[in-house]
């Protein structure tokens, strides 16, 4: 018996994503990004993102169906991000998904975006091992999760108390006069710098701090103060060293806490997902520390780490396989949806 064909729709932030998945097989992953429209604002503008979703929704759907070589009538179930995310953006995707489900008379599943970031790895590396520790890092989230069953049981171990990791990259890039988004440009510049040149603080790592929570606003402030000091002294800012040292501080704290979680919970598998998982230093340091600790590391390829529809379809496939009840057509989006709530 073949697995059902799952259509996934993602509009929680600035990517309009439509994916088609059968079991662990990725059939199509079409993404339309509005990131270029946000560059001149130096960050994501919710109204701009929502407008772009409306324009891109149906064209992206056409593209996904073409890529997979299937028709809408072949779809067996529809999954859509119900939260967390930007309220106006979530509304566009969920309204579209409801209409497709209604017109095609197929079951609809409103699912959790964070859970989808974890589930997507099955498309690349096969069934997820359980239990699993997952570190999700992007411009919108930074959380450490304990995954017992991706369709039913995910718990938050910790999360950022202020900025998301990707947001810290954007803010530091901005104060260095670098373009938005900051992640790729800092990664590139850091390659030519000395990561030990400046000792930036490691936030939330004191003995009395919550073991699995993160804080990046102090780090950003420390970078700003350091840069101001150099500017006041009339000296040239060593941009590559600042980038490398900042990136090292972020990667150090993220991997340190993730491995501590694996150790304390007796978990042998770590997954890193979200847009910041594309960062080369984070990947390298995680690889090193996992090898030392005897932990297996799974990181989906960068295209699957950033927001997309395939990840939503991947979680939809797990939820359908687990026999979950479909969502009703009147479900509300949940911009602050906790990861413990995997479906609505």
């Amino acid at each position: 018996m073949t697995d059902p064909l799952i259509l996934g729709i993602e509009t929680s932030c600035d990517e309009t994503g439509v994916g088609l998945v059968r079991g662990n097989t990725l059939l199509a992953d079409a993404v339309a990004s509005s990131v270029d429209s946000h560059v001149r604002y130096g960050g994501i503008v919710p109204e701009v993102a929502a407008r772009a979703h409306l324009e891109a929704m149906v064209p992206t759907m056409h593209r996904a169906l073409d890529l997979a070589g299937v028709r809408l009538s072949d779809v067996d179930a529809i999954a859509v991000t119900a939260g967390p995310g930007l309220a106006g953006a979530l509304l566009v995707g969920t309204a579209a998904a409801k209409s497709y489900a209604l017109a095609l008379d197929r079951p609809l599943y409103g699912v959790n975006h964070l859970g989808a970031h974890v589930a997507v790895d099955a498309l690349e590396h096969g069934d997820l091992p359980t239990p699993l520790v997952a570190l999700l890092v992007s411009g919108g989230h930074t959380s450490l999760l304990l995954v017992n069953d991706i369709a039913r049981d995910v718990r938050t171990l910790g999360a950022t108390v202020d900025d998301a990791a990707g947001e810290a990259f954007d803010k530091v890039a901005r104060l260095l006069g670098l373009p938005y988004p900051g992640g790729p440009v800092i990664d590139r510049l850091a390659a030519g710098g000395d990561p030990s040149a400046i000792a930036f603080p490691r936030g939330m790592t004191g003995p009395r701090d919550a073991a699995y929570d993160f804080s990046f606003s102090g780090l950003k402030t420390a970078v700003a103060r350091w840069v101001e000091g150099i500017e006041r002294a009339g000296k040239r800012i060593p941009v590559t060293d600042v980038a490398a040292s900042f990136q090292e501080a972020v990667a150090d704290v993220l991997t340190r806490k993730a491995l501590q979680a694996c150790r304390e919970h007796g978990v042998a598998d770590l997954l890193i997902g979200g847009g910041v998982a594309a960062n080369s230093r984070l990947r390298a340091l995680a690889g090193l520390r996992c090898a030392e600790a005897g932990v297996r590391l799974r990181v989906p390829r960068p295209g699957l780490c950033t927001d997309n529809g395939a990840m939503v379809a991947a979680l939809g496939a797990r939820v359908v396989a687990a026999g979950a009840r479909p969502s009703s057509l009147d479900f509300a989006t949940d911009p602050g949806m906790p990861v413990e709530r995997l479906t609505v």
Partner: protein
Amino acid sequence: MAGSRSVAANLGCVLTLAVDTATAGVVVGVVAVTDKVRVLAERRGGGPARHGETVAPAVAAVLAEAGHAPSNLAAVVVGTGPGPFTGLRVGMVSAAALAHALGVPAYGVCSLDAVALGLLERTGTTVVATDARRREVYWAVYSDGEQIEGPHVGSPAGLLDRLPGLAADRVVGAGAVLYDLPGAVDAGPTAAGLVAAAGPALLDRWLPAPLRAAYLRRPDAVEMAARTPAGRP
């Protein structure tokens, strides 16, 4: 309403779904369009910020009440604003997705037209003003049901100043009522008004123009101030 006219004319009945979410409420109806417009089922209401929860169940409900499956629909008409609520997009994307899934055309119409053409009495001059929030109204002027000015967004005082010159026979809409314009009567978009606003496109099966939301305002966002790049003294 833009679009090119197809060669083949259809003399049958076009079962049409009408949707509008440009105002605080939701309007959804199933309409049989022949040379006459017959509303088979209609739902109006719901509060602001509930469009996302309301539209799909309302579509299911009007179809059930009209005794039709979604696959019986031959066209979709949707109000494309102007509308201040984030819900404007809910109606538009719902209409676009339904039309795609059913393989039928989706026609966009001005939501103010759907108010003007939903009125029983439309001879003479009609001013439609809806609530644009932020102490503004969206407004347009109609002569015998034809839009002759607008749509605009502006202050109620600005529209009030224009009214004597327009010599309107009626001033309608939630915006007109909210700001107490003289003679204001409440009225909103209706399924019949939406279908009427689509005009001959439905029966003559015009190729639909792409749906474009009429926001009339730019997004509120401040562009990043140019900053001196670091790395230079």
